[in-house]
């Protein structure tokens, strides 16, 4: 049996080893580093099934009072590792773009770093989902955010990327400041930073609820930035469009999932305050409307996926407002599969033609496999039955109906209809428009394997979602 914290330590050591190899082993092909990383992360992923049990949160002391290895956190550790592995596969496909953007006399300069920094992000995500203390949440969130600063502006000779990097930097740092100030106020009222003890302190009727609520609203602002909820979504379209495509995929899946796990954990102590629920319902409604309506006129696919990511944050927030953890988790799994699949296709097609939707014209003739993968991804994002996306939305709406949140259900269903329009626009371009070029697009074995696995997973979960639900119930 492996003690749970050793997983993160293994990932951190791996990151440092890869960085050292990047610095000192100049002659090897840097892609080998990526393959080695993928192999090592798969080994860590297998290790998550052999974890030693951790002490219960209520009587935990020392290290275990800010770190937990409950089923939720172990599930999301696997989620983070899987995301990182798939993003690294995309990064191997993206390597020529990175190399072209770094003019250098030496061969493959900087490519190793491009493969090494996601490992640190992964470690940050794994710590974050285990964090049950505000100090630890803050530090691991910053590990994720600071490594994303580097990744977003990685191809820094491209002006759009650099601009995305600066925007992400300023707005993320602003959200950090809100998070810290919010935590300060919660600490000031309760005298605690541990979430369990905050719950206990807030149950005491003599405590002043007002300042604690003020602190919680500031923390919500900060988490709203991470999960791209309206009105804190301004950075999303620009950063998603400007960042290197694999990083965009990582940002939209890893960062968002971690944000939702923290949100579920942090909200628990504040649920007895009725104002909280009304606030989240309001944010969810705004996010649904903004994300779906602003996506309608987009012509750039990366920007379209950015608005779609805002829209999905809205559906997830419905689940949070009903406080249905399993529904949110299932939706996040479906979201991981379909978003990474669409970005994997985008990485390959964008290098051949471009990122506009019109660049996908006639893709079905040039590469039937890529077109089919994109078709499945878009159908699942829209929520067509027999895909994972359908069951994701089904469980979310089911929870909302059970909680009698009529406004959320009505707006949710209307916006799903909007979604069909803009997702199927891409499908129309691929299958019904003539191609500008006729040559075939080649896909390497590893990407083909990863994409096939994602397609199978989406369809399988769309027909038979029981395995994930079982894993969540435990």
């Amino acid at each position, binding site marked *: 049996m492996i003690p749970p914290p050793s997983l993160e330590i293994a990932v951190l050591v791996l990151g440092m080893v890869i960085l050292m190899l990047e610095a000192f082993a100049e002659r090897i092909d840097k892609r080998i580093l990526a393959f080695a990383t993928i192999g090592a992360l798969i080994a860590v992923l297998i290790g998550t099934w052999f974890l030693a049990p951790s002490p219960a949160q209520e009587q935990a002391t020392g290290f275990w009072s800010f770190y937990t290895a409950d089923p939720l956190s172990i599930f999301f550790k696997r989620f983070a590792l899987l995301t990182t592995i798939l993003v690294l596969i995309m990064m191997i496909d993206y390597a020529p773009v990175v190399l072209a953007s770094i003019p250098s006399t030496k061969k493959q300069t900087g490519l190793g770093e491009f493969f090494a920094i996601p490992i640190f992000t992964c470690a940050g995500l794994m710590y974050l989902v285990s964090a049950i203390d505000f100090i630890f949440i803050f530090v691991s969130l910053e590990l994720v955010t600071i490594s994303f600063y580097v990744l977003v502006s990685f191809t820094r000779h491209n002006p759009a990327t650099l*601009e995305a990097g600066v925007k992400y*930097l300023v707005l993320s740092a602003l959200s950090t400041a809100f998070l810290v100030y919010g935590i300060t106020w919660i600490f*000031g009222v309760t005298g605690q930073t541990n979430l369990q003890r905050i719950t206990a302190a807030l149950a005491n009727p003599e405590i002043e609820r007002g300042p604690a609520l003020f602190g919680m609203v500031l923390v919500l602002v900060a988490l709203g930035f991470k999960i791209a909820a309206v009105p804190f979504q301004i950075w999303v379209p620009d950063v998603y469009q400007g960042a290197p495509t694999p990083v965009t995929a990582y940002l939209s899946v890893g960062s968002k999932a971690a944000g939702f796990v923290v949100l579920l954990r942090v909200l628990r102590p504040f649920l007895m305050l009725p104002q909280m629920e009304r606030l989240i319902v309001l944010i969810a409604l705004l996010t649904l409307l903004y994300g779906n309506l602003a996506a309608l006129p987009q012509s750039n696919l990366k920007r379209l996926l950015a608005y779609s990511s805002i829209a999905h944050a809205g559906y997830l927030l419905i689940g949070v407002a009903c406080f249905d953890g399993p529904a949110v988790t299932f939706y996040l799994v479906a979201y991981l599969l379909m978003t990474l699949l669409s970005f994997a296709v985008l990485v390959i097609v964008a290098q051949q033609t471009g990122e506009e939707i019109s660049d996908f014209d006639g893709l079905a003739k040039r590469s039937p496999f890529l077109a089919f993968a994109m078709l499945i991804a878009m159908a699942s994002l829209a929520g067509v039955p027999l895909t994972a996306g359908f069951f994701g939305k089904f469980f979310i709406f089911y929870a909302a109906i059970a909680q009698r949140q009529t406004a959320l259900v009505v707006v949710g269903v209307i916006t799903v209809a909007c979604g069909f329009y803009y997702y199927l626009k891409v499908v129309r371009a691929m299958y019904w428009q003539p191609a500008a070029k006729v040559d075939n697009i080649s896909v390497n074995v590893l990407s083909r394997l990863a994409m096939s696995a994602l397609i199978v997973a989406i369809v399988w979960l769309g027909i038979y979602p029981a395995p994930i639900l079982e894993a969540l119930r435990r």
Partner: protein
Amino acid sequence: MVTLGHYLIVSGILFAIGFAGVMLRRSLIIIFMSLELMLNAANLSLVAFSRFHVQPSGVPDYNAQVFVFFIITVGAAEVAVGLAIIVALFRARQTTHVEDINTLKF
């Protein structure tokens, strides 16, 4: 006599000045300074809370002061990466003015 309230008011003012700086100023360096000011506002109130949350044994609550060290460390890391990005921006565009950064639009 200086009470907890005085410290909290000062820290609130610092936070507001920092936020106003981020929203109103147009130079990236000054925006970054304002962000640090906001972090320091949180530090000040944390130390004040720690000093006034005296435990029954008469010892202040040191958890908050440890948190302050973490904030300072993380803030330093953020500045290191942030300034590197701003320097890269200046090299590429010869400007750190936010109004000149407008390639990405609807």
